[in-house]
Every structure is written in C-alpha cells, then in structure tokens.
C-alpha cells in the first residue's frame, strides 16, 4: 500500500513536469496552428541557459527561471517574426518540415557549442526530500510541480483577462478577429510563439534540476509533449495539467504493474485512443 501511494505521488509529480513541458506546445499549436517539432529542442536550450546561469553566475535555477524564460522569449519572438511568419500560409507540410529543420539545426548547434557532455543543474538542495508519512516527496520535484501549476494557472488567467491574451485567443478562432483588438498580426504571432518558447525554456530549467540535459533530449520530449497536449486538449491550459497528470500516473502504474519497457506503449497507445475517441482531448467538447 505504501508502495502504491509512493508510486502515485511519483506519477503526480512527474505529471506536473509533463504539464509545463507541453504548455508551450499546446499554446502554439492551438493558436497559431503550428505543430512545433522543435519544441523539445527549445526545452533543451532552456535547460542549458539555466545550467550556464547556475554554473557560472551561481543563480539558483528557480530564481533564474524568469531570466531563462525572458531569453527564450526573445529567441522565440525573433524566430517567428523573422522566419516562421514567412511560411504561415504555406501548405501544412511546410510548417511541419520547417520546425523539423529547426530541430535538427538547434540540436547540432547545441552539440557544437555545448558539446555532447551531459549537464545537470544540481543545487545543494536538489536531492533533498520531505517525508510525508511513509511517502517521500523529493524537494526539487515538488518545487517543479509548484512552478508548473503556477505557470499553467498564470497562463490561463493571462489568456482570459488581458487584452493581449484575449487577442491571442481570438486569433485561435480567426485572424480577422484579432485585428479587432488592434494588435498587428505579425506581432501577435511572434508574441504567441515567444510565449510558447518561454514556457519551453521554463520547462527546460525544471527538467535540468530533476534529470539531465544533453543536446539530444529534444525529440523524445517533443513526442511526450504531443501526447500530453492531445490528451489534455488544446483549448484550455488547464487541460494540459490534466493531460500531464494523467500521463505521469499511467506511466508510473505501468512501470509498477507491467514493466518499465511498456511505459511508452501505454502513453502513446492512450494518445492514439484519445485521438480516435475524443479528438478534442479528455476535457474538450465532444463534437
């Protein structure tokens, strides 16, 4: 019983991390209709940014998170404005291909600049834990979970209650509506992509404190992020939390009862099932 409780806690905490990984992907996909295959590569870059901040400037990863997010926002804004805006109206394959190309480029640049060595963001408290009865709560994971919830809820409030947020939501419906808010579409697209990448950067920071970063982690993180955003649905950031928690718990239980090698069968199998049965996500409206 203790074991089951611990496994559920592990899954929940992992799920929080998953949610923040997928948040930016879901935003960009839902609003801009860009399926960003480079999303995981941006998570990787965010991880490196925080690693450098921590290792050379001794800035705690959680304190440095806004800084990393700001840098990543700039990168995302620039990429959308200078590159992705150029192909926004091209056929669908093209946005898929260009983000795949970006993924390749970012991965190789990372390997050239950062080397293939793996990095961990390892502040002294990273390995500490709290005991909650028989259950152990890893501190860094708990903090990452908290940040994930704050970011997701913050995102939700931002989309609901700010002018820019409403303009972004309107864009998701149609482009003309966005103009009614008086926001220039090119700027709006870049802002949205920038926000998505900033969230990816934040996810990278959290990922680096609980796992390890190397230039090649991107692709599998992208795949996971897809699963989460599909399961949760693209309409609402809160759906991503549901998707993340669901996936985290399912993977933990699969590992416990069936075997770790089946964790991917479970998560991607569920993704396919959800797509077939409820294409708008677990929380989404049925059509």
């Amino acid at each position, binding site marked *: 019983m203790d074991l089951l409780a611990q496994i559920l806690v592990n899954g929940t905490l992992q799920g929080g991390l998953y949610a923040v990984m997928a948040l930016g992907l879901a935003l960009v996909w839902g609003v801009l209709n860009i399926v960003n295959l480079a999303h995981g590569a941006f998570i990787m870059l965010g991880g490196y940014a925080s690693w450098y901040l921590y290792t050379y400037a001794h800035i705690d990863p959680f304190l440095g998170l806004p800084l990393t997010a700001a840098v990543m926002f700039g990168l995302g804004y620039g990429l959308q404005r200078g590159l992705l805006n150029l192909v926004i109206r091209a056929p669908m394959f093209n946005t898929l291909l260009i983000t795949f190309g970006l993924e390749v480029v970012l991965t190789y640049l990372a390997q050239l600049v950062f080397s293939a060595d793996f990095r961990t963001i390892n502040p002294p408290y990273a390995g500490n834990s709290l005991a909650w009865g028989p259950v152990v709560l890893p501190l860094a994971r708990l903090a990452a979970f908290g940040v994930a919830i704050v970011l997701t809820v913050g995102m939700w409030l931002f989309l609901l209650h700010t002018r820019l947020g409403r303009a972004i939501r309107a864009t998701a419906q149609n482009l003309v509506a966005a103009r009614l808010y008086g926001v220039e579409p090119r700027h709006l697209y870049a802002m949205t992509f920038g926000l998505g990448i900033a969230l990816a950067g934040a996810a990278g920071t959290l990922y680096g404190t609980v*796992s390890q970063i190397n230039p090649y982690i991107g692709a599998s993180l992208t795949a996971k992020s897809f699963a989460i955003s599909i399961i949760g649905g693209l309409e609402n950031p809160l759906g991503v939390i549901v998707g993340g928690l669901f996936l985290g718990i399912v993977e933990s239980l699969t590992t416990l009862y069936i075997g*770790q090698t089946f964790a991917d069968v479970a998560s991607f199998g569920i993704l396919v099932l959800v797509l077939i049965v409820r294409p708008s996500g677990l929380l989404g409206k049925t059509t």
Partner: protein
Amino acid sequence: MSSRHSRLLAGLFAIAAASASAGAALAQEVVLGASVQLTGPVANTGRYYRDAYQLAIDKINAAGGVKIAGQSHKLALKLYDNQSDVNLSVRQYTQLVSQDKVNLLLGPFASNFALADSAVSEKYKVPMVQGGGASDQIFARKFKYIFGTLAPASNYFGSTVGMLKSLKPAPQSVALLYADDAFDVSVAEGTRPMLKQAGLNVVMDERYSTNATDFNSLLSQIKSKNADVVLVAGHETEILNFVRQAKSLAVAPKLYSFTVGVPSEDFRKALGKDAEYAFGMTAWLPTTALKDRWFGDAEKFAKEYKAKFGYDPDYHAASGAADVETLVQAMEDAGSADPQKVRDALAKVKFESLYGPIAFNAQGQIELPQMVIQVQGGAVAEIYGAKGFVKQPKYPMPAWDAR
C-alpha cells in the same frame, strides 16, 4: 575554422610528401579506417575512440611507424562520423574498404554498431579490431574478421558478485536492473546464474527501456522490496538519472554498482558529491604495472592523453589505443599489411599493452577480468580484483541524509 586550416596544411604536406617521394622511394602509408560517433546521442563516448586512435597513431609514427618486413611505414587514420546512426556507419565502413581502400579497420563504439559493422569486415574480408562492443552476440556469429578488446559483457558483474560474497555484513537480496539493448541484456544474462550460485536472493529483475529518464517507480520498488544490493546495467545518462533520483527519493541500498559511468570523469563531475560510494567496474586502470612498448606504461598513456585532449581517458580510450597497437603488432608478426595475413596473425597475437595482455579466444574476443572500483573522495579507487580486496570498500553506503 581551425579544422579547415589544418586540412589545408595537411593538404600542403601531402603535396610536399608526394613530391618528396618522387625522389626517395618513401615507404607507403598504412591506412587504418574507422567510423565512430562524433555527433548524436552517444558522441559522448564516441570521442574516446577518435582521440585514442589518433593519439596511438601519432605516438607510433613518432617512434618510426610500423616495421613490416624490414621497412618502416607510417600509419594514417581515415575517420568518419556516423552521427550515431547504425545504417550510416555500415555505409561508411563499406566506403572505407571499397573506395578509400584502407588497409585495416578499427571499430566503432557500442555493441549494436559493432554487430552491424562486423558484417562489412566479414563481407570484404578485412579484419576489424574493435574496442567498443562487448556484447557476446558480436562474437557468437563465428565471424572470422572481427576481434574485440572489451571484456565479455556476460562477465561484467563477475568480480562484483565475487566481492559480495566476502562483504560484512553479508548482503542478502539483490535487485538487477538492465537496459533493453544488446550489451546490457548480455550483462544481465551473464549475471543471473552468478547471483544464484552466490546464494543471493534476487528480489527484482527488471528490464527498462534504453534512454529512460524516469526511474522513480523502479526506485520506489527497490525501496519497498528492501534490496541490499542494486546492480544496474545501462548507459551513463540513465545511471546519472538513477543516482539523482535515488537521492531525491532517499533510496539508499547497502551497495549499488553500475556497468558504466563510475570510471568516467564526466559522470563523476556531473554528479559531484552524489557520485560518492557508487561502485562500478573497469577492466583497466592507468597504472604503471601495465607496461607498453610505445607509451612506456598505462599511467604515461593517461598523462599524455589528458595533456592532449583535456580530459581523463577511461577503459574505452585504453581499449581504443590498444586496438591500434594490436593491428600494428599483427602487421609486424605477419610481415605484411595484407588483410588476410594480418587476420591470421591477429588470431595468434599475444603481447603486453597499456590496456593489459592482448590475446583473443577462438571467437575473437579478449578475456580480461573486471576490477571492482568505487568512488571514494571524488576519485576512483580500486577495491577488488582477481586477487581479492585491494582496498577496503566503503560499505554499507550511509543513508543520503547521513553523509
């Protein structure tokens, strides 16, 4: 841009050499070909082979090169980056033998690569000496042109299990975790009967996917099953995650041991203090006891390697350097660089090297015992070898909050 520069220089030298050879009949170069992982997910270990090959070849050339039938030949290296892609590496090895016409082959890193690439050497009948693949599968195919200088995977935990029997307090239960690739499955298959024979109770025997990042569930099970000893056969990134997550879940068995990671400087750096107490194994340590014809001894090799490349070599690097020396030795024994003759010489080769005594069994694999090592005070300490304890192990491992 420096690589471009050096390529230009190399080109100039080549022209100079060519014009010089027009006059004095300079002996032909012996070209060794290899395709290793310089980019991609396993580039981190692939670089050991590139650097070791280069260092060994430079060293041998500086000493006059290889003497074949009374004539000195310089060695040259033709190296490709396979981008951690098995298919590409197969094509590159084919290119090396059929187009670049290299004389002999050096191996890639990792068992699955060696498994695929050995088919090329077999097909073209050009011997390959590889120090990157230890899986027993590579040598189970009765291929005649593949020789391996990594100790057999099935015996990786052999010395560790030997040590377990003489530890006080004696450990009772063992958890065995392994990644689902060729090498680690071979390790697990070899380890199981040894554990049984040692009378240890295997409470967990779990396979996990290669590149798994979340070990929380497995760790929680280890804790709940109270395993005294945890043996993990996997890759460095996984083991890094494993140790970090063990700490954050306060899982501290009496002992844990890993097939890879512990000998690598990069691994110890990434974990910092948390690497402490981790057991591992290596078939090689840079000691003066290992005498070498070219470098003097293993310690000198390690020093030169570090001075040149800026990081410590581990057994991968030593094995790679030994591969070059093995080919050189075989050419000298054979008195020829002819692939067929070198192959026959390789089958009988026997000499002392910086890596240890080199000789191949009937399948073409080396037989080297593994030494048990442990991270103590940030450095690797040799704990247990063929002759028993060398140094006292720090055992049992203290709880994470008692360090």
